[in-house]
């Protein structure tokens, strides 16, 4: 069986935000073209979702962890938090473990791929631990002006490899990059660069 991949699958505004400052994602409410950018296939490729606490709480407030596709009870949800709630939440495990240890434990278990739902903090933690395999980014043709960036800011330099790109009739651009392992590869092959 193929290794489980940890995938950031997300939409950003064209100016690079995943939500408004208050967490709002109203700007994502737009009609999807036929096929919904391949979302259906993606949802069947995963069985685990990783959430930041704020993203999780906002999803619950919006009416459930189900979210897009309304995941079956078989979907495992992990929420990263320093302060787990006192009462357990059905179908959800709260995680305080360091990301690297958690990721290798998860990868060692058999299963489908793992979806990092966001937000920017959890994405940054996994990225900086070298644990993001794929970024699948849907660039929405809208500037929202300000908001929560895709990845919590910190100086970094992560080379990506473009796997595919699709432009849809509604102007959404879907970019698929791989991240894990690209760093060492680009070091050995010495990609051609030029100062502009």
């Amino acid at each position, binding site marked *: 069986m193929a290794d489980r991949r940890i995938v950031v699958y997300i939409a950003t505004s*064209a*100016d*690079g935000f995943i939500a408004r400052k208050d967490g709002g994602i109203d*700007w994502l409410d737009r009609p999807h073209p036929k096929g919904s950018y391949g979302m259906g296939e993606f949802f069947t490729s995963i069985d685990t979702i990783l959430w930041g606490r704020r993203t999780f709480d906002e999803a619950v407030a919006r009416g459930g962890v189900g979210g897009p596709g309304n995941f079956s009870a078989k979907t495992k949800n992990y929420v990263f938090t320093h302060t787990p709630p006192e009462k357990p939440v059905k179908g959800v495990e709260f995680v305080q473990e360091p990301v690297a240890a958690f990721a290798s434990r998860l990868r060692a278990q058999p299963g489908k791929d793992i979806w990092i739902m966001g937000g920017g903090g959890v994405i*940054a933690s996994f*990225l900086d631990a070298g644990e993001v395999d794929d*970024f699948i*980014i849907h*660039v929405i*043709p*809208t*500037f*929202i*002006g*300000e908001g929560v*960036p*895709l*990845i919590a*800011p*910190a*100086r*970094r*330099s*992560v*080379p*990506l*490899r*473009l796997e595919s*790109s699709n*432009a849809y009739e509604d*102007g*959404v*651009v879907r*970019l698929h*990059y791989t*991240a894990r392992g690209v760093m060492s590869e680009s070091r050995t092959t010495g*990609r*051609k*660069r*030029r*100062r*502009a």
Partner: protein
Amino acid sequence: MRDVTFGGANSVDNFVARPDGGVDWLLWGDEVAEVVASFWKTIDTVVMGRKTYEAARRQGQGGGYPGMTTYVFSRTLPQDEKGVTVVREDAGEFVRRLKQQDGSGICVMGGGELGRSLFEAGVIDRLGLNIHPVLLGAGIPLFHPMTRQIGLQLEECRRFANGCIYATYRVTY
């Protein structure tokens, strides 16, 4: 009416340079050279902010661009900068008037601060991005926070052999 184009080479997380201004991550290639050359043929005017102008001047590229009318927005630069026209008035109003004059396209050069003023003034018509396959995490942003939401219409999306994505949009406000 003359089109005003904003854009440039950016990282996936929308930075145009590292925190120290470094652009060592930029990739070049025949395809981007061709795109830049054909875009350059559609314009006759360049507008930029003071910081971009001073950065270009430090690299020995002062005096504007040959064959182009170059405007630099600044309230502090002396009026007699060689080869460029220093503009003291509000950038949005100035560009709005410029668009009504005869001429070819207008290119907004450099960082996002001028871009923001011009987006907020509603005078930018096109956006052109050369999205590089890298995450920088911090640096000089292409887009500065804006108080308005702006609609875009995708015109073109091409994949370059070097892993960059060239995407152009029409700004619909």
